[in-house]
Structures are given as C-alpha cells and as structure tokens.
C-alpha cells in the first residue's frame, strides 16, 4: 500500500506541475502585454510600464516561469491587483465558504443518487428503471444557474419557503446556515444526481451479471447478503471515481450558483477577479482548485484501492 501511495503522490505532483504550467501560459504568455490587458487600451504607456514592472511581467518569460513555479511550490501566490493584499488569506476564507456549500450539495446528492442507481439497476429495463435513467439525463443536463433561477422563483419568491440569498447573518448557528445554503446546494446537487446515479446503475448492472454474483445467489445467500458482501463493494468503484472527478467540475458550477445567490465564496471571488482583471487572484484560484481536485482524486484512488485489492496490486507491479 505504501508503494501504491507514493507512486500515486508522485503522479499527482507531475500533474500539478503541468496544471500550473497551463495556467501560467494562459495568464502570462497569451497576452502580449499583461499591464495593457489589465489597464485597457486607453491607459497611458507610463502607467502600463509601471504596472508591468511592479508585477514583474516586464522580465523575460522564462524568468517569470521559473519564478511562478517557485511561488506555486512555496505557496506564495502574490498580491491582488485590486486590493494590494495577499491573495492567499482571501482565497482561503472564500474556499471555506465554498467548501460548506459544495459539501452540503454532495451530502444531499450522494446518498439519493446511489440509492436511485442501485434501485434502477435491480429493475433493469422496467419502467421505473427507464424513469430513473430519464431523470438522470434530464437533471445532469440543466445548468446550475437555470436550476438556481427556477428554485428562486418557485421556492423563494412564490412559496417563500427559503431565503433567496445564501449568506446567513453573522454568527448564525449551524441549522440557520444550512437553511440559507439549502437552495444553492440543491441547485448543484441536481446536476450531480444524474452523473452519480447513472454511474452507480452501470456499475451495479455489470456486477449483477458477473459469475461471482450468480455463484453467491446459487449457494443460497439472501438478496441482502449478496448485495452487501458481493455487489456493493465492486459496483461502487466507478461511482467513487466519478464523485472525485466531479469535485473539479463542482468548482465550475459553483461560480454561477454563487452569483445567483450572492454568496461570497470561491466562485464570487473568481468572478469579481475576472471583472477586475485581477490575474494573480484568478491564477492562484485556478491552482488552488486544481490542488483540491488532485486531493479528491487521490482520496478516491485510495478508496478504490481499499475496496478492490486488485487495483493496488496492479499499480505495485
């Protein structure tokens, strides 16, 4: 297991380096003149030059690249153009708020989606299975901001059941915070429901057709025993993988949801940075989200290796 983990960590570091390079290329190589991009076409040349010098974007690209890789490695993400303060504390606070929202969304969606997937798989091709598949396709098709607006109109404005803005009053207790986050979290949960349910269904159908499941049934185990001991463990492996991959995606969707519900998390911070052309903030945000994604896939790989020894033995060979 130790070898598996160290190998997997090494791969994550390589991916992280490539990711930082991609972000560097977008932010520093694509624009000819970073200062000009930020200040716009009408700013005097002197202020553009001054800004470039302040940001270090007047240096040769290769020097900038080495410097930016060093910064990524040492967690020094520079200062915001707009506020002049270090971006990291600001992003960390936003990340905590987004994590609450994303965590609640996952908490809402994972149990329901897995249950629906298992239920559908065991009734394959019957009307109820067709219905769940159709529901899955539909729910993963609707962008979060569309679900969000529909929820606001129906639940928030017409029925007045939940607050339409997600930011709770300061020092609110946990139930109140959940009440405020429930609607945005639901908007995100609906998109993931489709992915997770379909993946669980496909994984379960495959396992149900396998020889070992048939053997287990034929040796006289009850359905519950077969499901618990033989089916679930193997059927949920692709589901774990898809949940991890969705974590990266989660942070794409969260931008629109936070905009609708005016919630000051990672998404709003990124959107505000985009409007202000605050490139250090945007690049730091992209890299931090990349790191979160790496950690999530790492955790998923560990879980999968734990669930199925063949995966870790394969990797060690």
């Amino acid at each position, binding site marked *: 297991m130790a070898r598996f983990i160290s190998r997997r960590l090494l791969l994550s570091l390589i991916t992280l380096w490539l990711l930082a390079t991609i972000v560097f290329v977008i932010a520093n190589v694509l624009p000819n003149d970073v200062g000009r991009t930020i200040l716009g076409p009408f700013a005097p040349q002197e202020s553009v030059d001054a800004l470039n010098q302040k940001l270090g974007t007047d240096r040769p690209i290769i020097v900038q690249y080495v410097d930016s890789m060093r910064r990524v490695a040492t967690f020094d993400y520079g200062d915001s153009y707009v506020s002049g303060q270090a971006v990291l504390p600001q992003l960390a606070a936003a990340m905590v708020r987004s994590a609450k929202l994303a965590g609640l969304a996952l908490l809402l969606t994972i149990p329901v989606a897995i249950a629906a997937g298992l239920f559908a798989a065991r009734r394959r091709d019957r009307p109820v299975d067709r219905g769940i598949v159709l529901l899955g396709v539909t729910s993963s098709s609707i962008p979060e901001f569309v679900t969000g607006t529909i929820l606001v109109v129906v639940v928030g404005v017409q029925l007045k059941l939940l607050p339409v803005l997600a930011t709770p009053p300061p020092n609110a207790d946990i139930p109140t915070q959940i009440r405020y986050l429930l609607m945005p979290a639901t908007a995100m949960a609906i998109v993931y429901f489709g992915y997770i349910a379909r993946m669980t269904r496909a994984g379960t159908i495959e396992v149900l057709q396998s020889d070992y499941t048939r053997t287990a049934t034929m040796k006289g185990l009850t359905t519950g025993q077969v499901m618990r001991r033989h089916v679930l463990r193997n059927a949920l492996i692709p589901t774990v993988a898809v949940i991890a991959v969705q974590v990266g995606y989660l942070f794409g969707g969260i931008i629109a949801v936070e905009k609708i519900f005016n919630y000051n998390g990672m998404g709003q911070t*990124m959107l505000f940075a985009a409007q202000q052309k605050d490139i250090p903030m*945007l690049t730091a945000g992209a890299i931090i989200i990349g790191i979160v994604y790496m950690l999530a896939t790492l955790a998923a790989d560990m879980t999968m290796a734990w669930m199925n020894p063949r995966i870790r033995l394969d990797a060690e060979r």
Partner: protein
Amino acid sequence: MDVSVTPTPVGPMANPAVSERAQARRETFRVLIRRPAFILGNVIVLGWIITAVLGERITPYDPFNQFFAGHLPPSPEHWMGTDRLGRDVLSRVMVGSRDVLIIAPLAAMLGVIAGTLLGLVMGYYRGTVDDVLSRIVEAFLALPVVLIALLTLVVLGTSPFVVVCVVGILFTPIVARTVRSAVLSERQLDYVTAAKLRGESGPFILSREIFPNVLGPTVVEMTVRFGYAIFTVATLSFLGVGLQPPSPDWGLSVSEEYNNMISGVWWPTLFPALAIASTVIAVNLVADSLQSVLSE
C-alpha cells in the same frame, strides 16, 4: 460496424452488393426511431433551429424593438411579458437560440476533431508519446472548464471566436481520453495485425483501419459534447464573458434579469432559463439514445 445515422430509403433492397453496410445502417436507424426519447430530442432541437432561422419573420414582435414600457407581466398581447427595456420576451426567446446554436456546435466540432486525432495517436503509438500526452490530458482534466474559460476570456477579451476556441480546446482532452480507450481495445484485434504484416504505414492503419471502427464512440462523443457546449456557453454568457448585449441569447437574458426575480418579476428570467434547459435536455436525450443503441 457502420454507425452513421442517415436515413436510408425504405423499400426492397436494390443492390445486394451494397448490402451489409447499408443493412447495418438501416437496422441502427430502425432501432433509433423506435425510441421516443430520440424522436422527442430531435423534435425539440429542430424546433429551436427553425425559430432561429426564421427569426423575425415569425416572432410576434421585433425582438430588439423597445416599447419603453418596462416590465409587463404575461398577458394576451405579450404571452411571456416584456423585459426591463419593454422588449417582448417571447420574441427574444424565439431568436435567442441563434448564437448558441452556431457557437456550441462549432466548439463541439473543434473539440471532437482535435480530441479524436489526439486519442488515435495516443492509443495507437502507446509508449512515451502516450505517457507524456496522458499526463497533459490529466492536468487539463483537473482544471474546471468554466473557471479556465473565464480566465482565458479575461486575458484575450471576449468574442464568439475566442469562446469557440476556448471551449473546443478544453473539450479536446476529454474526447481524447474516450477515443484513446476505444483505440486501445481495437489495436489488439487481428485486422490491425494483418494490416501491419501487409506493411501498411501507421497513418494509413489509423485513418483507414482503426478510425472507421471507433466512429461509434466518436459520434456519441460529438453529440454529448454538443450538449455540454450549450451548457458551457450558456453558463459563460450568464457570467458575462460569453455572448454580449444586445444579443437575445438565453444565458445573457437570464444574467440581465435575474436580479429582478426577488421583486416578483420572474418572466424575463424563467422563460429563457426553461429554453436553455429544454435544448440541453433534448440534445442529451439524443446522445443517450445513440449511446445505448450504438454500444449494443
């Protein structure tokens, strides 16, 4: 297996020589048109294409003309009400698909063409090329599409062309991964070995032998990517970096009007939002039907 879905004329088989391929194609099509989801999806997409093409010729009012009345609730004159500038919401929803139905297919096509080429090369040559490219693909997959699109559009400035390129490039690694795994299972088959023994070149084997056999997953991927492209472009427009005013684009309309929902003005937001939902769902219904029919 030939997987094209072009309809073939029904009737007695004219030429038995064309047979097998045409037969398979006809079979696939016959199975497809028996799926209500496939029909429904196509009807909805076709409907939006028709309203986009006919545009002002069939809208009840000019979608850009302002009545200076501000928000009016839905009424017999304005079925979906009017927006903040007094423009007829129904007319704008009808022409709102225009930009996204041009941009999204182009972005999907770019992603699928580039991704298929990359996937073919990665899957066939294996070795160092595959290892290096796989790592790069994985790094791209770690990036949230919407955030990277946001960053790129801020840096390059937003225009439909840049939106197509950014979304297309961000889709490339996803397609490459799908095509690569399809190629991996094909390259071990006898027909590839036979071609190698005949002394065919790599590019020939890839384009003439392997590619036709991975066309199935590619067609499915194209449809799936089309759905995601609409999803992504709509989200980018909603975030203000996609299509720009005065475009009647649905995502942009929602973004311009969603603030008014709290004061009870829901119609200029809800109808474009439902239009987006209907289009992406329709495309995904088609994609899902293709996937289950072609993978059987």
